[in-house]
């Protein structure tokens, strides 16, 4: 009996040793902290497919939703750091969350081993079709002149449209009335129906409506224009240079990953993003693929630290002034 146990233990140990050499041995779970079908989920699925090919094991998406994405990230951050649980973090979960959730059980800058940025989805400032302003400057003037008479839609505290909308207001000095929706779908519906005046949201949600002429866009908050919306000026061109925001999505692993496993994941993500089919899919959505300087774990760590520092003061004051 004792001998059998010892042999069992030895072979188990041998298996562990082998596993470290030949990671991955079984499918890898990628936790997506938002519902299936949303922008982050779509990016995760687009990236997971070529990553699976590069790793030789399936990367399986698991949607764990709740509390602005922090439920899924909390759970993934507590998983064992063996490379078999990774996650698709996001501007909200790794930038805005510390300001919004008091009892947050992770620190975006300290609880993770960053793998790399996957894709950015630029923010677009959109308004109802009949809004009486020709360009962004005129738009901001109207916002300031009419104050709380203007209605700004967003998809709930902690959502991308909320954080980026609050940032827009703090930079322009606009003080619109905030109208809250459950998700961007209904918010866009009311924007089309003239119930609300404007919102800021991810390009993937609004581009088809802008192209269809049901709403209008004043500016895109990136350094360069997007090929999906070639006629929409950047915020810099339109006169609001400080407003550069993107709802970025990035791959993280729980803290404490073995160095070789981490290297394999970084390489797999890199291969995935260099695959022309993947790039094409991301660009078709209006997304951006990380440039050389933005790719990889070091750049991601810096991005997380910058984002937490940027969102915390803006969102804290916005949440505190909210009755």
């Amino acid at each position, binding site marked *: 009996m004792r001998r059998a146990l010892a042999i069992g233990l030895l072979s188990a140990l041998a298996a562990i040793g082998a596993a470290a050499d030949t990671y991955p041995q079984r499918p890898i779970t990628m936790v997506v902290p938002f519902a299936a*079908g949303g922008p982050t989920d779509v990016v995760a699925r687009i990236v997971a497919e070529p990553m699976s090919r590069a790793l030789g094991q399936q990367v399986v*998406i698991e949607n764990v939703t709740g509390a602005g994405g922090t439920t899924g990230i909390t759970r993934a951050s507590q998983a064992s750091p063996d490379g078999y649980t990774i996650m698709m973090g996001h501007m909200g979960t790794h930038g805005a969350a510390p300001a919004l959730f008091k009892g947050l059980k992770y620190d975006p800058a300290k609880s993770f081993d960053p793998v790399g940025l996957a894709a950015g989805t630029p923010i677009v400032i959109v308004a109802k079709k009949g809004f009486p302003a020709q360009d962004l400057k005129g738009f901001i003037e109207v916002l300031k002149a009419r104050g709380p008479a203007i209605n700004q839609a967003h998809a709930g*505290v*902690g959502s991308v449209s909320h954080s980026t909308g609050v940032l827009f207001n703090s930079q322009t000095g606009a003080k619109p009335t905030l109208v809250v929706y459950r998700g961007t779908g209904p918010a866009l*519906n009311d924007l089309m129906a003239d119930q609300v005046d404007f919102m800021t949201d991810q390009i993937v949600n609004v581009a088809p409506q802008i*192209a269809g002429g049901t709403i209008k866009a004043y500016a895109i908050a990136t350094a360069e224009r997007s090929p999906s919306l070639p006629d929409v000026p950047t915020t810099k061109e339109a006169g609001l240079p400080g407003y550069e925001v993107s709802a970025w999505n990035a791959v993280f692993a729980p803290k404490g990953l073995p160095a070789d496993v981490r290297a394999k994941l970084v390489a797999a993500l890199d291969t995935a993003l260099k695959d022309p089919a993947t790039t094409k*899919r991301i660009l078709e959505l209006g997304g951006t693929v990380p440039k050389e300087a933005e790719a990889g774990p070091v750049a991601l760590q810096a991005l997380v630290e910058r984002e937490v520092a940027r969102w915390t003061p803006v969102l804290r004051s916005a949440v505190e002034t909210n*009755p």
Partner: protein
Amino acid sequence: MTDLLANLGLGFAVALSLQNVTLCFLGCLVGTLIGVLPGVGPIATIAMLLPITFGLDPVGALIMLAGIYYGAQYGGSTTAILVNIPGEATSVVTTLDGHQMARQGRAGVALGIAAIGSFFAGTVATLLIAALGAPLTRLALIFGPAEYFALMVMGLAFAVVLAHGSVLKAVAMILVGILLAAVGTDLETGQERMTFGLAFLTDGIDFSVLAMGLFGVAEILRNLDQTETREIARARIGRLLPSLADLRQAAPATLRGTAIGAILGILPGNGAVLGPFAAYTVEKRLARDPSRFGRGAIEGVAGPESANNAGAQTAFIPLLTLGIPPNAVMALMVGAMTIHGIVPGPGVMTKNPNLFWGMIASMWIGNLMLLVINLPLVGIWVRLLKVPYRLMFPAILMFCAIGIYSINSLPTDVMLIAAFGVFGYGLIKFGFEPAPMLLGFVLGKLMEEYLRRALTLSRGDALVFLERPVSAVLFLVAFTILAAALLPSLRRGRDAVFTEA
């Protein structure tokens, strides 16, 4: 007209290719199966199958995913009828009379009428989408927050009519449902309400958790303490298909249900949920003998089932013409489309006519397939009633647990089903009905949201609900329904009020 025919021709040419017909069939089959399994819903299945569709062309992939969606609607009624578990909000009403029919040995007839009603509704709805999809989109834009709030109030008036026992108890149940809906994070301020600091309550209670606990688990518990009756329930099986007399009785209900469901399905604010409830209320109001309802009335199955399926189809209108998903499954379809490089929006119809018309044609083909798949299966499903309870109950519980876990991957959801099961058992013992509570729960969440949004937009002026014509009319209807439901029982005097039927 010629345009429509040409477009439909294009659609059928796309949908009838061997590959697409096969995919449509696969989707419908998978959809029916997961619909029948209590708990496993279309959302989890579509999410799981998404990666498989990567290799397919977008039209084929979407045809298959759509097949899963409406296949699951069909299958969901099967579970509602046979084991009294509504898979989705839309099949809650089917349990009321459908399961009673099953207990009277008319399970086959109930399943048959549900399938035929759904096919009819699906056909009409498909034609409606093809002919009027684009102009109907405007309806979605007329409905602002005030109109939605009025619609939800009307829905709650339905809930009172829904109850066949005491009105007072029904109202109490609706209020409990609304209270349960208020659990979770407040949308506007981000503050937690009634969560007791428990992390798993921060996002509120999931509808499926509540439905599976109150109906599925509670039903099993109830059966366990009724040893005598269950023998009778499963001994008699009776006719497998509806007779001509059944069909004649159900036909008007099917027509009305289709019309109601189709209109409510177009509304993007989850209006489709109301379809079956509204259809049931209409049937009960119009019936010569309303007391038959809740005791196995065939119209009580035909109306809501038609409404349910018509709504499931017309829900595609806002998705295909506006690019706005009206419910969670449609949101997933948006994701599927974007992964395939088609961003749904106002341009889909002109930019991807193959996809647009191909999907519409495939809906009708899918409905036909579902009829073909389901009618022969009725015999098999009904035989399931003969499975000894010692085997069936553990199986149902297992599927409920797996299904609920597959939605959000939260173990606490599984524990919540057990808790609501015990709660539901208590309700049954004290003569409270769970159906009005579920409606209160579904509507409560939406109502609060729309009320606050409407008042934010009107800067706190409550008159907005009466100033906007559509909302004023809806309030009037709600008031009339309530008055009609309450007045006769008030006249009958105090004793009769509290036990209507």
